[in-house]
Each structure stands twice: as structure tokens, then as C-alpha cells.
């Protein structure tokens, strides 16, 4: 939400205008006594919420209704934009001389100025008959009748006015004061809603910031807090006041237990003296078992960092190791390990704090990856041009050479005759030496290169995101071609070894889908399958994909099946989870299938499932509605 900064101070006017406004106070026909007039907002800038279009539209209906009911040519909502006042909404009524967006300078004796200055309603039945008003600017527009109300933000600062104007004395209008007050209240309650929303957002931002600072502080204080626990404990136990010791100890332990980090304190020999609840939970080692043990025995994540612990103890300086890798249940995880020395009289020891940052590391990796992909998209178009030109040169020349070797071009025969060359012999020679077929293969290779460039472009082009009807078999084949050019797969020469069996339902109608996104899904499945089939431990003798399309009542079914190692129930259940991967970080972000799932279900209103068991390959099944996304 954009927040417009508006100064509420209609300042920067000469004393003249002030005087004018003052005198206006006395001569306007006020119906109500002015409220204990708060001074117009002074100094400072207030953040005011923007009035969104739907609210403006509603106000438009309000003023239209107002002007029509009261039968005046002009109903307006005015807004102060110091040093001017703006027609914010203007009724769509006949004879209305005010256009939305029009502005007038403040300090010129406008009716509305008085309303705003006094924060009270103002009625001018006939300006010409009132010496105070007989020279005001609106008379030039023929508007001699005026009834207006201030419109205020909930904090009493002025938004502007709501008013009606007429070119004649309008006794009826006075009857409607109550009605107009209603309208004014509608506008003000909208303003209250808007500022509440704005405040809520600001508070949320502030909260977030406070939380961030708090977290940073918590981190800073962690060490000294643990110090304090030990200090206090010793001191208190020395004083032998068990009841106080108990209370304080509980409080502090409670605090340390509530920390979202694993916190472990060790003594000078590296044996555990404290073990917070987070440590108990993460490491499944109860405090009673941990205390007194050497830290490396109960906390394997820390064992590679014993050096840091020792350094911290010896040098009395904080040590840290970021993004350290370790395996938890065969899954790679990342931790930040920090060691703070305990400083205090006669204490020796350190606090080890460990945070699991796996998710963050993965997100960062993913962002780097997707940034790379973005730049590839941009590069592809430029690169295509660079490749297409030389490719045209190669293919065209091959074609002309072939042309000039054949016997049915009159021009060839003509030149051959001039030279006394037997054209039939020449072409027999070309056949025998396979020159013709070699040139044909130059053209063929050229065509393949051109197709690869085209595929790559189609896939990387951002604009290509509309729904259209596509043949699923064709789409699968295109994606197979694309996979064959995928750098990662190509590098290990995976894809070439894989046999591809196609089982397409030729009667399947075209399906309304976003081709590029669906291709992305299929590409993910092919890459995963290829990776699985070529895993080192047990590659199938003949790696094979079976690609199927079929009709299933009101859905089109796509299947991508491989004969790789498959997966057990525990993995199968989780494959669509974001960040779930059994591959090393950097190799797989664990996003391929979750993104695919999103594309199929959310973008296309389809379903995506997998059947698999260990040793029996995996079959991914996508169902898309035949009628396209409803």
C-alpha cells in the first residue's frame, strides 16, 4: 500500500490571507457553535493513507446522490493539498462548473477555507446579499449559495470539506442539513477505516523490526546471560540462600530454554554444564544424560568444531563457523556454530550456540539458481541471433553446392557444355564419393542446430505464458528434445543412453494449457527420472522412459514412467514437499517436483500423483481437465 505524505499545514501564506480567514470567521452564518477549535495541525509531516479507487468511486456515488437529492448543480468533496485545495470528487450533475482535480489557492477567501479553519459547518444563503462573501472567488462561477461541512481524519486533522453550491438562493437545501451531515459521516468513517488499516500496517512493520532487533539482542546477550546464570548461581550458593537461588535459577533456566537455538555451556575441560531444551529436542538427548559428558560425545554437530571451543576457552574470544555441513538422518543440513567464552571471576567455560540454517542456505542457493536462469533467458535471444546467422551461411551454401552438382539445372548443363564436361559422369563421381550425401548431412545437422536454438528460445521466452490448445504428444516430444540438450544431463551423457517408449493416444484432443510451464513440469520429471536411473549403485541395464498420454473420462492423463531405483513409501510421500531432496545441496534444491505440483494443480486445475516402490521404478501421473482450466 502506498502511503502519501501530505503536510496538513496550510501554512506559507502571508499575513493577508490569515487576516482574511480571521474575518471570515465572524461573518459566516454558522448554524452550530464551533467545537473547542483545535489549532490546525502544526509542523511535522503526517503519513496519510492513500484513498483507494474503490473508495473514491463510492464517494462519487455519494456526491451524485447528494446533489440530485438536494437539487443543486454542484456537490463536492474537497481535499486540502497545501498550499492549495483540490476538487477531490465532483458530482456528475448538470450545470456543475467544478471539475475533478481542479485546484485553487488557499488564502483567497474560499467558502471551504472558512469551514476548514473553524471546523464547523457554514451556510451562505446568498453571497451577493452578504458583504463578507460578495467578493469571494466562487461568485465568478455563479455560485452564490453554499452549504459545507468539514471532513476530518479520526485524529481531528482536516481532510477537506463536503459541500453543495448553487447559482440561486436555495431555501430547500437548508432542510437537508441533517442529510448532508449523514453524508459527511459516511466519508469520515471511510477515512477512519483507511487510517486504521494504515496504522495496522505500520504497527506490523514496527513489530517486525522490533522482533528483528530483539533477535539480534537475544543472540548478543545469550553468552552474558549464561555467564550471569553461573555467576549468580555460584554467588547465591555461596551465600547459601537456597530459596532465592531456586527462584532465580528457574527464571534464568526458563529464559534459556525458551531460546530458539541450541545452547550448551561447557566447563574448562569441555564437559557439558548446561543443556537447554532446544538441545534436548534436537539431539534427543535428555539433560540428565548430557551433563558432565564431553561435548563431542553428546553433540556430534559440534565435534568438528572442538578447535573453536578450545580456542574460545583459551583465548577468551568468541569463535564462529558458519554454514557448516553435517548429515542428520542421511540428509545434509547446515548449521551456524558460535562459541562464546564465559567471562567472570574465576570461571572457566564457554557457551556453544548452534542454529540450524539449512532452510536459509537452500533458499539462497535457490535464488542464485533462479537468477542464473533469468539471465540465461535474456542471453538466449541474443545468442540465437549470433548462431542463426552463421548457421544460415552453412546451410545455404550446402544447398547451393548440392544444386550445382545436379543434372537438372539448365545453368549447370550450360557451363558443363562450355567446358566439355560430362555432367552424368560428374554426378556419378559425386554419388560414388558420397559427396552428395555428405552435403545432405551438413544441411541436416544445420536443421537440427536451428531446431535446438528454437526450442531453447521457446522455453526461455517469458512472454510465452498464455493458455492455448496444444497436442500433448507433441509437447512431450518437444520436451524430450529439450532434455537431450539440457546441459547437466548432456554432460554426463545420461540422456542418450535412455530408451524412450511412446504410447500416445492419438484420439486425445488438444488440451488448453500453458505450454512452457507444462514443458517445465515434464522436463523436471525427465531430469529426475534420468538422474534416478543413472544413480551409481544400481543403474538398470537398459534405462527406459515410457511416456503415455490417454483419455480418462473428463481428464487427459500424462504419464512419465522410468525403470530406475524407485523410492520407498517414506520418500514417496514427501517428494512434492518444497525443499525435499535426497540429493546434495547445490545439485538439487528439492524444488523441481513442488514447483511442478504447483503448476499442475494451481495453474492448470489438474492433479499430480506418483506411484513407486523400491526397485520398481517410478511413475508420475498428471491429469489435466479436458476442458482446460475452469
Amino acid at each position, binding site marked *: 500500500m502506498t502511503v502519501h505524505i501530505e503536510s496538513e499545514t496550510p501554512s506559507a501564506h502571508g499575513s493577508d490571507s490569515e487576516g482574511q480567514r480571521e474575518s471570515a470567521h465572524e461573518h459566516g452564518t454558522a448554524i452550530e457553535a464551533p467545537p473547542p477549535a483545535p489549532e490546525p495541525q502544526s509542523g511535522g509531516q503526517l503519513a496519510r493513507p492513500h484513498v483507494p479507487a474503490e473508495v473514491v468511486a463510492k464517494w462519487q456515488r455519494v456526491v451524485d446522490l447528494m446533489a440530485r437529492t438536494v437539487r443543486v448543480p454542484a456537490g463536492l468533496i474537497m481535499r486540502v493539498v497545501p498550499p492549495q485545495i483540490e476538487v477531490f470528487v465532483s458530482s456528475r450533475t448538470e450545470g456543475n462548473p467544478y471539475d475533478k482535480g481542479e485546484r485553487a489557492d488557499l488564502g483567497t477567501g474560499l467558502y471551504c477555507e472558512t469551514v476548514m479553519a473553524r471546523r464547523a459547518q457554514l451556510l451562505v444563503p446568498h453571497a451577493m446579499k452578504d458583504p463578507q462573501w460578495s467578493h469571494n472567488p466562487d461568485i465568478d462561477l455563479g455560485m452564490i449559495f453554499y452549504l459545507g461541512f468539514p471532513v476530518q481524519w479520526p485524529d481531528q486533522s482536516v481532510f477537506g470539506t463536503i459541500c453543495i453550491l448553487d447559482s440561486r438562493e436555495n431555501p430547500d437545501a437548508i432542510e437537508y442539513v441533517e442529510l448532508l451531515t449523514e453524508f459527511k459521516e459516511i466519508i469520515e468513517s471511510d477515512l477512519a477505516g483507511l487510517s486504521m488499516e494504515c496504522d495496522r500496517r505500520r504497527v506490523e512493520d514496527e513489530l517486525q523490526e522490533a522482533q528483528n532487533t530483539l533477535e539480534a539482542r537475544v543472540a548478543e546477550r545469550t553468552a552474558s546471560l549464561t555467564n550471569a546464570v553461573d555467576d549468580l548461581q555460584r554467588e547465591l550458593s555461596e551465600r547459601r540462600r537456597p530459596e532465592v537461588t531456586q527462584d532465580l535459577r528457574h527464571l534464568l533456566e526458563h529464559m534459556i530454554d525458551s531460546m530458539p537455538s541450541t545452547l550448551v555451556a561447557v566447563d574448562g575441560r569441555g564437559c557439558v554444564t548446561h543443556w537447554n531444551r532446544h538441545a534436548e529436542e534436537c539431539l534427543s538427548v535428555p539433560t540428565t544424560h548430557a551433563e558432565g559428558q564431553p561435548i563431542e560425545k553428546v553433540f556430534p554437530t559440534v565435534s568438528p568444531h572442538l578447535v573453536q571451543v578450545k580456542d574460545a576457552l583459551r583465548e577468551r574470544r568468541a569463535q564462529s563457523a558458519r554454514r557448516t555441513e553435517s548429515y542428520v538422518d542421511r540428509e545434509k543440513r547446515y548449521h551456524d556454530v558460535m562459541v562464546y567464552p564465559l567471562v567472570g571471576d574465576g570461571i572457566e567455560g564457554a557457551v556453544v550456540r548452534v542454529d540450524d540454517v539449512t532452510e536459509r542456505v537452500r533458499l539462497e542457493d535457490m535464488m542464485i539458481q533462479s537468477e542464473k536462469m533469468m539471465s540465461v533467458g535474456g542471453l538466449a*535471444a541474443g545468442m540465437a541471433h549470433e548462431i*542463426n546467422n552463421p548457421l*544460415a*551461411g552453412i546451410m545455404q551454401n550446402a544447398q*547451393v553446392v548440392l544444386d*550445382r552438382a545436379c543434372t537438372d*539445372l539448365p545453368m549447370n548443363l550450360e557451363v558443363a557444355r562450355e567446358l566439355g564436361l560430362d555432367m552424368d559422369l560428374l554426378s556419378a563421381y559425386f554419388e560414388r564419393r558420397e559427396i552428395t550425401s555428405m552435403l545432405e548431412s551438413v544441411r541436416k545437422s544445420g536443421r537440427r542446430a536451428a531446431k535446438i536454438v528454437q526450442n531453447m528460445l521457446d522455453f526461455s521466452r517469458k512472454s510465452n505464458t498464455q493458455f492455448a490448445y496444444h497436442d500433448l504428444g507433441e509437447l512431450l516430444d518437444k520436451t524430450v528434445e529439450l532434455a537431450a540438450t539440457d546441459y547437466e544431463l548432456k554432460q554426463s551423457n545420461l540422456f542418450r543412453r535412455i530408451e524412450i517408449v511412446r504410447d500416445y493416444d492419438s484420439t486425445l484432443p488438444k488440451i488448453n494449457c500453458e505450454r512452457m510451464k507444462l514443458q517445465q513440469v515434464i522436463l523436471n520429471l525427465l531430469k529426475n527420472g534420468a538422474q534416478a536411473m543413472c544413480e551409481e549403485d544400481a543403474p538398470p541395464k537398459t534405462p527406459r522412459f515410457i511416456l503415455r498420454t490417454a483419455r480418462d473420462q473428463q481428464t487427459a492423463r500424462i504419464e512419465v514412467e522410468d525403470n530406475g531405483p524407485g523410492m520407498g513409501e517414506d520418500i514417496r510421500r514427501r517428494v512434492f514437499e518444497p525443499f525435499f531432496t535426497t540429493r546434495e545441496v547445490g545439485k538439487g534444491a528439492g524444488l523441481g517436483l513442488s514447483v511442478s505440483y504447483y503448476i499442475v494443480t494451481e495453474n492448470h486445475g489438474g492433479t499430480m500423483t506418483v506411484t513407486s516402490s523400491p526397485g520398481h521404478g517410478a511413475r508420475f501421473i498428471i491429469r489435466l481437465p479436458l476442458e482446460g482450466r475452469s
Partner: protein
Amino acid sequence: MSASAVRVLIVDDESSIRCSLVNYLEDRGCTVVSAESAEEAIEMLETEPVDVAIVDIRLPGMDGNGLILAAHEMLPSLKFIVYTGSVAYRLPPALAEIGAGTDYVFQKPLPDLKVLLEAVNRLATEGAALA
């Protein structure tokens, strides 16, 4: 060359493309002249009679779009074919206004130059019918 031979101007800065096109079209009976740049092409049009111009878009100096506009000023009856390696090419509205058609925009590389020959012949007969 017979008097009825179609006269073609080829503008491309890449010689392997330009020369092979010249050879191909000459083999098929067209009268062909060629230029490496838009500026050279404009000079040529002042003296050489031409029915159809095959124009590359990315050229040193003035680009193909500029050339087509300038050449149309000089010879309103001249027909154009765009032959470009750029994948993002869209026919500018100014060119569409002077009668250049998206049917006559071709993307390099063409798998078979026959397509270009047919386009040249189509445009030439169209022009002849109008004349």
C-alpha cells in the same frame, strides 16, 4: 538474361549468406545484384532496375527497416522481403503501412531456400499484375 527475368536486390552484410543467395537465385533464372549495407543498396537503386529486395535487418550503419522506408520513397513499386537472424523481429507499423507483409518476413536459417524463391516470384507477379 531474358527480359522477363525477375530482378532481385540482396542486402546482407554476411558474405556467406549474401553470396549463396545470389548464386541460388541466379541458378533459378533471376537477375541478382547485391549490397553489403543499406547505404550501398540505396546507391545501387539509383541506377539498377529492381523488382524485389531481400533485406537483412541488422546491418552496419542504417538498418534494414530504415533501408526499406528509404527505398520505398525512391521506388514505390519496389517489393520487400525481410530475412533476419533476429528472433525478436516484429514488423514495424511504418513498414506495414507501406505494404510490407508479415508473410514476407523470414527467419534465418531457412531449411530450404525454395521458400524464398517462391516469395520472390509471388511478389514479382503481383507487381507485374499491378503495373
